[in-house]
């Protein structure tokens, strides 16, 4: 017997019971997860201990009791004293002369004297545990619910099962939601890492773009001014020529026009026009550079995850190098490229870009001396592609080496690294069915090795 049952108090009238608000089954099931067993309460009218077996059998026929396996037996004062099940009645009535032998006896003769009694405040989980410990097969009985005032009603085992199921479903939904939130916040982290590294890039890129923009604008302004001079020269010369050839009457201002031609010719001569051509060549070059930078930037800002494409890893390396060019140039870092013959790779180019960018900017940041050197090598091996990024920077301490791919692990000063760069790179490479390894010697340098299957994640060896 459960503790709940032993703690049961003996108290007032049971006749109140029938007048409690009727609760239908559907309602009970809906409310169940909210209020424990109270939500499953059925205000079943109990039978008295002295009621005859035949009368109880009659009561089972009452349509209000159609859904019940058993009826509670409650003494005056509201104390439940037993439970009588249809099963038990049927067992007795099916015996020869069962009806005649037991029909007139009080129900106490047949009832289960130790029914399952649970307080209304019991939680669904606890009720489920108690029922599981108590239940017999086949399930023949429901259970009695009590409150401080004594008998409160009955509860159905089936309802408890439904409620448990409901709660399990709710929990798994909660888990799903938590998982979804986690996934979203991770992709947010990936995103913010991308933004942070982009933010560092922006400064350099703005400079890279404004430099050509500077001379392009200046050259165009000067060309416009020179063209104005040239136009005036042509019209002045025309006027002079017309006057000389007699095409037109010489104007009074012919002398002035002559002077103008003389003056303008010093400004618009063959040499000046040659210079102008040179400026326009520079301008075309500058506009091309700006276009290229914008194109690179577009590659890096692409957020699509899916886009699996065939890509040339060497081109990705070159494009990533262009993005970090300003950092490398500012620190006078020499870049050694050893690019091999590489077959096109099945990958998400924007993601591989992110990995390369991360490795390159880490390499640049690791170099604190003035003889900086970064080696980038690619090589095809069987059905795999190897990418090596090696620097001669300060290296990584042995105790940090095993943690560099951990999320949030950083040795950079606050605000300079999110600690997510390598963790994300690691994830991206794994998603491509590849691997990323690091080796380092403090004071000498660090080498990252990325291995990617040529045929993408699908073709990766298991």
């Amino acid at each position: 017997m459960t503790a709940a049952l032993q703690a049961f108090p003996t108290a007032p009238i049971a006749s109140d019971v029938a007048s409690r608000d009727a609760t239908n089954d559907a309602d009970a099931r809906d409310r169940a997860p909210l209020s424990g067993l109270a939500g499953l309460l059925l205000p079943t009218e109990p039978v008295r201990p002295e009621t005859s077996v035949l009368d109880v059998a009659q009561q089972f026929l009452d349509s209000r009791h159609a859904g019940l396996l058993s009826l509670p037996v409650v003494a005056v004062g509201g104390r439940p004293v037993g439970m009588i099940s249809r099963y038990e009645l049927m067992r007795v009535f099916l015996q020869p002369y069962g009806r005649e032998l037991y029909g007139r006896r009080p129900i106490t003769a047949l009832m289960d004297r130790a029914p399952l009694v649970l307080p209304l405040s019991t939680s669904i989980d606890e009720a489920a545990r108690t029922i599981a410990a108590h239940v017999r097969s086949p399930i023949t009985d429901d259970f009695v619910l009590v409150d401080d005032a004594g008998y409160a009603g009955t509860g159905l085992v089936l309802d408890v099962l439904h409620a448990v199921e409901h709660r399990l479903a709710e929990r798994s939904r909660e888990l799903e939601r938590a998982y979804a939130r986690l996934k979203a916040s991770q992709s947010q982290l990936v995103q913010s890492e991308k933004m942070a590294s982009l933010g560092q890039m922006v400064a350099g890129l703005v400079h890279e773009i404004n430099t050509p923009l500077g001379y392009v604008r200046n050259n165009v302004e000067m060309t416009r001014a020179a063209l104005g001079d040239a136009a005036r020269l042509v019209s002045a010369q025309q006027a002079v020529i017309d006057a000389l050839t007699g095409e037109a009457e010489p104007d009074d201002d012919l002398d002035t026009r002559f002077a103008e031609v003389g003056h303008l010719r010093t400004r618009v001569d063959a040499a000046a026009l040659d210079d102008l051509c040179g400026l326009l060549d520079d301008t075309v070059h500058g506009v091309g550079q700006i276009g290229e930078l914008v194109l690179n930037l577009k590659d890096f800002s692409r957020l699509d995850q899916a886009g699996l494409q065939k890509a040339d890893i060497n081109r990705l390396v070159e494009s990533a190098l262009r993005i970090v060019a300003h950092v490398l140039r500012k620190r006078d870092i020499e870049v050694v490229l050893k690019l091999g013959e590489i077959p096109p790779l099945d990958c998400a180019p924007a993601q591989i870009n992110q990995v390369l960018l991360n490795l390159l900017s880490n390499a640049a940041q690791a170099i604190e001396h003035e003889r900086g050197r970064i080696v980038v090598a690619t090589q095809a091996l069987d059905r795999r592609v190897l990418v090596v990024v090696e620097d001669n920077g300060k290296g990584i301490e042995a105790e940090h080496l095993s943690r560099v791919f951990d999320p949030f692990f950083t040795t950079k000063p606050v605000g300079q690294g999110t600690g997510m760069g390598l963790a994300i790179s690691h994830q991206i490479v794994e998603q491509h069915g590849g691997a990323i390894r690091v080796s380092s010697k403090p004071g000498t340098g660090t080498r990252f090795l990325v291995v990617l299957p040529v045929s993408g994640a699908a073709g990766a060896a298991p």
Partner: protein
Amino acid sequence: MSAPLPSVLFVDDEERILRSLRMLFRGRCEILTTTSGREAVEWVRRRPVHVVVSDQRMPGMTGVEVLREVAAHSPATMRILLTGYADMDAVTASVNDGEIYRFIEKPWVAQYLVDTVEQAARVARHDFALAAARPAASAASPVDTAVAARVAVLDDEGALAAQVRELLPAAVRVEHAPDLEGTLELLADHDVAVVIARLSSADGDVADALKQLKRLRPATLAIVVSSLRDSRLLIGLINEGQVFRFLLQPAPRELLRRGLAAALERHAHLRTQSDLLQRHAVDAPRHEPVATTTGRLLQAWRRLREAAMLRIA
């Protein structure tokens, strides 16, 4: 015969920028160009250069480093930064270390650059001539900075004023004004050597006032203390306000002390050699003082202008 053309040195690691600039300034000045910061410094050491226009981001030496060296070797040379990207650290260093005349961003407007460089060249030629006429003496003799100097602190909190008071010798009068009106009244009534202003918002009256003030009182030097990491604001304060120092709040004691000492010395120098004032000429503010200006503030401005007129007369 007219004076020889002023010499202008352009420093940029992009050849095409130099080519473009050579073309723009052809016939206007003697043009020197180099892609190396070190070579630029060498040049200034070897021969008079009136104006140096340098890029900021270059391999080897940054523009600010170049200009700081230039200032050390040839104080009369005017220094201009011409750069494609203004990060806050570079702009702050350009004020505090480079004491630059203008901060110009790429892409530049051709006419503005020409005008600015020519203006700078005029000032530099004047100063070169002055230095030649008064050899050694003026440059070497220490100026007595403390005499009757007056410092105004615009600080709505008061902590900065207390710190300034503590850092300066007793002979210097430190006046504290909690608001702009008070500061302007101080300026109208007294000859103020240095204004130290705490700047808490980029678009407030204070930044505008500092710019206006430089036009009326070129000899008064401004030190701005602010927590705003806003490079655009600072570029405005350089070009339109010739701010003397910009310190990020909380300003390190030593930096503030050195800034104050340098400002007082510069002020004394400017007072004895008013010819030098042209170095502090400013661009017209891009916009007029804000429309929210109160009556009291307008009153203070009027008094300040009248006082400035009297001084000139």
